[in-house]
């Protein structure tokens, strides 16, 4: 992305984020497969590990994780104004969908086609997210240190320890390792 954004660049960020918002069912991590496909694979605006960083920070801050992640992505791509453009882009589809659905929501809840569609969508979201862990893992789990931390964190997350503590734990481990290697030198 260029340093000074033109209107065309903002529109492009808005359009990509709008598409991501439209096909994200479930907040937070459900966005990841599309973020990684659009920004790391298709336009190569971000490196895979940058997406990992963005989600780690988004998850550690108060606020809605998906909005935090959109803001951070936008900021990384083009500064503060771009952050708002990205956040509005990713949330506008849900806003518009909810406005219409709320008008006749009883029929929506009871509609059997929508229930069937949601069963398919939920299964697909789990599958696409599994693929994304695989991809992001390839860039971050490339040495013994990484695998050890991963192996420590996994049982804790499955025991539903708050993700914020796990991220802070990883941070402490990274800082401790630096302190130790510095002292040895």
């Amino acid at each position: 992305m260029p340093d000074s954004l033109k209107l065309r660049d903002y529109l492009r960020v808005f359009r990509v984020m709008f598409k991501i918002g439209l096909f994200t069912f479930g907040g937070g991590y459900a966005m990841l497969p599309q973020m990684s496909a659009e920004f790391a694979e298709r336009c190569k605006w971000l490196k895979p590990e940058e997406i990992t960083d963005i989600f780690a920070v988004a998850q550690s801050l108060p606020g809605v994780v998906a909005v935090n992640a959109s803001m951070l992505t936008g900021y990384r791509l083009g500064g503060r104004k771009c952050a708002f453009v990205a956040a509005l882009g990713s949330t506008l589809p849900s806003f518009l969908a909810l406005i219409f659905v709320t008008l006749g929501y009883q029929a929506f809840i009871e509609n059997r086609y929508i229930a069937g569609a949601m069963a398919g969508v939920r299964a697909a979201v789990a599958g696409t997210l599994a693929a994304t862990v695989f991809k992001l893992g390839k860039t971050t789990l490339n040495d013994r240190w990484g695998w050890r931390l991963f192996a420590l964190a996994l049982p804790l997350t499955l025991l539903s320890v708050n993700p914020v503590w796990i991220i802070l734990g990883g941070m402490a481990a990274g800082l401790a390792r630096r302190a130790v290697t510095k002292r040895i030198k």
Partner: protein
Amino acid sequence: MSVLLELFIIFAQIGFLTFGGGMAMLPVMQRILTDRGLMTLQETIDMVAISQMTPGPFAVNAATFAGMKLAGVWGAAAATLGVMTPSFVITALVSHYFFKFKESALVSSALSGIRPVVPALILAAVWGMGAASLTDAWTWAVALISCGLVIKKVNPAWVILTAGLLGALLLS
């Protein structure tokens, strides 16, 4: 005006407290809305169902639903902006420093510890989603095929859209 302001403030609180996922906020959100007499318990149950059936983060969807129901389109706008405002303010402050110091020795060594634990967090989210949604051979097949397609770099948006259409035809 006062309804709009009330919606904005309530949902700004909810947005601020959404630490570690919107679903964790659900009981608090339900209590605030019912205690203030803004919604009945049944309406909050519908709100949850709708928020899960529509695209987008749970907290944002719930805010739009509640705002729309209580004060129409302007109410929806007030509640949705409210729920997003804490994220706006906090990330606008943090992102400046984060990206500025990302390359510094201290932050990059912190990141070297954070990066490997993120896949574990996502894997746990996959586990939770799988336990709730993979109930038969059909849904397992959808999940496995989706996973394979995304590894082969098919755009996840198309995968999700196709799975939704197939579900509407075959699972209804």
